[in-house]
């Protein structure tokens, strides 16, 4: 079996190791990184922007450019999160926590380097996974129905809430707030809820208004406050490169992130955002120093960044093997395939091996280009932090506003961004973590859909889902993720009492 895979991959590389295709990959990686830095466009938007360009290319060249753009966007999103606390996508939210803290401590270069290296290694793991395990994992993903997804979401929520911030109750409350936001608008049956009579809220609250408001605008308020109160700001000299010690220290986090990301990426609908959240909570749970997370822990950047890149490659498994797009991005990719007269699905491996193995080779080469392109650019990116705050803050706000406006052309979304900025500011002042709100917003509608489908499947008896082994595994993991931090907190409290 491995002989066949290896020879197919060699054929794939033979096809794409052409100056023309390599130029497409370089262009795609660069464009993806630039677009990824800007909030509001996201990977699906970036691929959609490429559609007019790829129409003039041959099918393999198009696939090559799309794959390289996708990997570029995934990396670019973390750059803005790390440097400016502006997450443009769900998958980039988690990089705000430790990545931005590292930047505040003068370690922005190290954070960006570990993100690039982690993305490369995890991307490679995922590509290998796509080659070897693709068809098998796609088969496993088919065993996931509504109850399994519901259990997965519950696990993701408990894992994150038990570990983010200082208080689990506050984290769960923040998540509840996120779930509430997710119920605004039309539900799956078309019933309008909590729209307060406004037509503009029928589609719900835009994700970007919530994310950029909570993270970026609250940061703008906090920074403005410190400038106005003439708080003395330490001028940091930012380290551009990473130490070898830091790479070896984060190595296993990258590997774990890669594996977690690939598995979650394969599940249709789970996506890179959940992969990065699960990876972050796993890293914190198994760390010897969990208290360092949220304060600039490099593993808190390495794991999630690796996970989101691996998840983006994992999402290709159901798309290629089953013709099922697992995310908005792969849906756009599938659309591009249709435009190019390529039919994704089980027959693709037999009918168009050039496309499948060309795509695998393209993802791999895209990862290499990403590393070559981004490591030298880090010194340039870090310079952003030397721009005076009084200039940087209006730039951040204007870019956030344009990002939001470009996606729905509604000024209501801009007002909501301001509102969430104020909420985010007071939440941070009262020590409520922000990440669970985003998780609630992202998972809310999917969770409700899975919940309602589960109830229909079980004729209203919720507890019937406990007959399913995968559900039991996820519920077990959810209980462990709550109990372990509580147990360690108790040990710590007992120890401090003895002292």
């Amino acid at each position, binding site marked *: 079996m491995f002989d066949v895979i290896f020879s197919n991959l060699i054929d794939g590389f033979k096809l794409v190791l052409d100056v023309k295709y390599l130029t497409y990959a370089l262009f795609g990686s660069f464009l993806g990184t630039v677009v990824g830095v800007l909030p509001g466009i996201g990977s699906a938007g970036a691929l959609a922007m490429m559609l007019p360009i790829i129409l003039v290319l041959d099918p393999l060249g198009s696939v090559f450019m799309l794959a390289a753009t996708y990997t570029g966007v995934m990396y670019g999103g973390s750059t803005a999160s790390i440097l400016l606390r502006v997450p443009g996508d769900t998958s980039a939210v988690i990089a705000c926590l430790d990545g931005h803290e590292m930047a505040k401590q003068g370690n922005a270069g190290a954070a960006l380097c570990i993100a690039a290296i982690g993305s490369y290694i995890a991307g490679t793991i995922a590509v290998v996974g796509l080659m070897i395990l693709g068809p098998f994992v796609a088969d496993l993903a088919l065993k996931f129905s509504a109850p399994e997804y519901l259990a997965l979401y519950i696990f993701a929520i408990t894992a994150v809430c038990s570990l983010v911030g200082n208080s689990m109750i506050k984290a769960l409350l923040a998540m509840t707030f996120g779930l509430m936001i997710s119920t605004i608008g039309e539900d799956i049956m078309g019933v309008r809820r909590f729209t307060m009579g406004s037509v503009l809220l029928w589609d719900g609250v835009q994700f970007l208004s919530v994310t950029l408001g909570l993270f970026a605008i609250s940061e703008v308020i906090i920074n403005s406050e410190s400038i*106005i109160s003439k708080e003395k700001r330490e001028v940091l000299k930012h380290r551009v490169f990473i130490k070898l010690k830091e790479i070896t220290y984060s190595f296993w986090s990258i590997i774990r992130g890669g594996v977690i990301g690939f598995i979650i990426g394969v599940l249709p609908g789970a996506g890179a955002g959940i992969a990065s959240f699960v990876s972050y909570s796993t890293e914190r749970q198994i760390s010897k120093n969990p208290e360092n997370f949220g304060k600039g822990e490099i593993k808190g950047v390495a794991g999630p960044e690796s996970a989101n890149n691996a998840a983006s490659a994992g999402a290709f498994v159901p798309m290629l093997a089953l013709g099922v797009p697992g995310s908005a991005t792969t849906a756009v990719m599938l659309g591009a395939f249709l435009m190019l007269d390529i039919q994704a699905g089980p027959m693709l491996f037999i009918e168009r091996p050039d496309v499948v193995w060309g795509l695998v080779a393209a993802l791999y080469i895209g990862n290499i280009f990403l590393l070559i392109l981004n490591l030298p650019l880090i010194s340039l990116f870090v310079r952003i932090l030397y721009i005076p705050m009084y200039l940087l803050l209006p730039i951040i706000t204007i870019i956030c506003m344009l990002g939001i406006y470009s996606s729905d052309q509604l000024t209501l979304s801009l007002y909501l961004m*301001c509102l969430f900025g104020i909420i985010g500011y007071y939440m941070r002042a009262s020590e409520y973590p922000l990440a669970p709100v985003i998780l609630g917003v992202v998972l809310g509608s999917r969770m409700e859909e899975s919940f*309602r489908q589960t109830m229909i499947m079980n004729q209203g008896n919720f507890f019937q889902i406990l007959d399913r082994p995968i559900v039991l595994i996820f519920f077990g993991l959810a209980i462990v993720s709550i109990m372990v931090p509580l147990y360690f907190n108790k040990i710590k409290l007992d120890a401090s009492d003895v002292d």
Partner: protein
Amino acid sequence: MRNLLKFFLSKENLLASIFLIILLFYFFSSLNLEKTIGEDVVGPSSFPIIISLIGTVLILFLFLQNLKKKDKLIKEKDNNSIRKNINKLSPILITIIFVLTFELIGFIFSSLIYSFLFIYYLNRNLKIALIFSIFITFVIFILFYYGLNFQMPMGTLINTDEVFPFLKAIKKSIY
């Protein structure tokens, strides 16, 4: 009674108290929704009701937790005057002005006003505010309007396309 009010309005509990009010409003609004539709055995109201119940229980837990440190909280000096809060939120007020004028006078003019006001508010240097507001607006406009082909608001009250007709002509020649 006064102590109870003080407890709910203390720094530690204020946000949770506001959230409790929102949750109650959310809960009662959920009750007005239909319980089930067709084969859907749970309906559109079930999930919001579950969320509001979980949220209420969590807030009660939080209050109980904070009740243990009640004495400490009541002795805490409240430094949050209204004036101080308005000062803190000045950047948001300036941003709201930006949003208000965004579609009325178009991106170029609203961004010029916004970046000028914001930079001047933070730096108190008229020259720097003027130079950089023009520079920032120009660079962002070029990047988004021409580079990324974004749809920018051109203004209904003052139409930027009429004031600077060459902007559209350049875009037409690019795309």
